[in-house]
């Protein structure tokens, strides 16, 4: 970090890395994934699904391993296991007296452990570190294509159904009472979550993907009272922090996933302190007055 500051030349800082093919690719995919996860994070935070995001992102792990072993696109395996974990959570919750958060924790750690065991047992060229911590700087063309397709699907679904999904998060009872199929919306949102988790895995890895799925939404939530504006802010802050994170990672040779999430967290802290209406500094002054 220190040598970054010493050699700091703003223009060069941004332009020089663009001469590398791998950096152009990393910046593009990180911004894209950041934007996509940022959009979804609005629904996750408003619906209160942070833990669900954590669960699904961890549960895709064995899916990735199995898909690689079978020579399938990793996204398909991840999607199957992501949705499967959610179905399992629903099933165990319904059939037992255990509370939901316990069931979520139980299922996702189980899936994650299965993934770890499979990685160590199945002979393959999967780099565990890449799955766990992401590696946008080393992303391959086929992974890039998959990420584009996934992002396109997620954005399309979230755009087409944004009103219904908003209503579902805000007042599911009303949604049902006007004849909207809320069960369908529930699973639609969960499927999109699985897909976004797979996309996020590319840049920040399984462990940190949940940050991509909640932090931008939480930041935006502190900044506005309008849903549409919240989505724009979340997408913007998330894409921006991904880009900055990749740059910082490049210049100071630090873990990319960690750097992206750290920038996101810093932006959240800024909002937490200085947000016009909901920042803590603001509310303190207003209570004194």
């Amino acid at each position, binding site marked *: 970090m220190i040598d970054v500051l010493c050699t700091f030349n703003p223009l060069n800082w941004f332009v020089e890395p663009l001469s590398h093919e791998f950096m152009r690719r990393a910046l593009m995919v990180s911004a894209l994934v950041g934007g996509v996860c940022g959009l979804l994070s609005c629904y996750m935070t408003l619906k209160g699904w942070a833990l669900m995001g954590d669960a699904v992102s961890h549960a895709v792990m064995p899916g990735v391993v199995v898909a690689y072993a079978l020579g399938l696109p990793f996204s398909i395996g991840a999607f199957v296991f992501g949705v499967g974990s959610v179905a399992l959570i629903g099933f165990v919750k319904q059939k037992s007296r255990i509370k939901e958060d316990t069931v979520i924790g139980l299922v996702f750690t189980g899936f994650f452990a299965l993934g770890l065991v499979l990685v160590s047992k199945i002979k393959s060229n999967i780099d565990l570190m890449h799955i766990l911590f992401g590696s946008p700087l080393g992303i391959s063309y086929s992974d890039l294509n998959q990420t584009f397709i996934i992002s396109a699907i997620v954005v399309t679904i979230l755009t087409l159904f944004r*009103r219904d999904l908003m209503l579902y998060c*805000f*007042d599911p*009872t*009303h949604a049902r*009472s*006007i004849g909207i199929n809320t069960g369908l919306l529930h699973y639609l949102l969960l499927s999109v979550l699985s897909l976004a988790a797979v996309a996020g895995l590319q840049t920040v890895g399984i462990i940190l993907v949940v940050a991509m799925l909640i932090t931008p939404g939480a930041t935006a*939530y502190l900044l506005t009272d*309008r849903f549409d504006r919240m989505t724009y802010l979340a997408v913007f802050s998330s894409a921006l922090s991904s880009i900055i994170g990749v740059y910082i990672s490049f210049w100071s040779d630090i873990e990319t996933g960690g750097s992206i999430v750290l920038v996101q967290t810093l932006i959240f802290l800024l909002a937490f302190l200085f947000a016009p209406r909901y920042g803590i500094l603001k509310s303190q002054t207003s209570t004194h007055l």
Partner: protein
Amino acid sequence: MKPLINQVQPSTFLGIEANEVCVDYNGTVALYDASLQLKSGSICGLVGMNGAGKSTFFKALMGFVRPSRGTIRINGCTVHKAQKDQIVAYVPQNEGIDCSFPVSVWDVVMMGRYGSMNVFRIPRESDRKAVWHALERVELLELRKRPIGVLSGGQRKRAFLARAIAQRASVLLLDEPFSGVDVRTEKLMSELFLQFRKDGRTILISTHDLSHVRDFCDLVVLINKTVLAYGETSEIFTDENLSMTFGGMHPNVLSGPTPSSEEF
């Protein structure tokens, strides 16, 4: 087979029809043999203690719980069809709504129009007019740009009522509309309900406040696990009936020792 006949019938019954509706939750009976016929152009109060099955009956009418027996028809349609056709609107109690949700009053009322829009929910001019008109009727027009969270309890209640008005449903189900509202809201709502009756709508109000029922409900349904009595308010509101509903001294009701334990 039944819905087909209902659609073909020339003289469909307008309003709410429940026929021997039973609801049980995992074997616990919440409601049994509840029947009523509520014609359009009337205001009906649904009266009973907490845990007497009022909210269960409401949920059954809205299709949120499936009756284990019996049938429900709204304007001659099944509940599901009535919802799809925006025939029936439900005004919830405020509880359970996330009031820090980033939506404006206008957005909330617009949600009443979603069912009439195409799948992408893009508002047309007619939808905006309906929302405007509904906000006018509940006197919230000036506050339309405010976030829903900054409204007072009474204003919020009016916002959700406006949503039902914007829906233009002919059957309205209101859950405890008068609980926790200020005098202004109460007066405004009573006037609106009387106006709805004149428009020929069917209004079912769940309440445990008897004075409101006496004041403007034409019909009343007394509930304790089943429909105990049903009819014109003046005839039904007898001491004997009320003690049967509220007294708990009646031996043949199925309610357990703690009437409120059912609701959670």
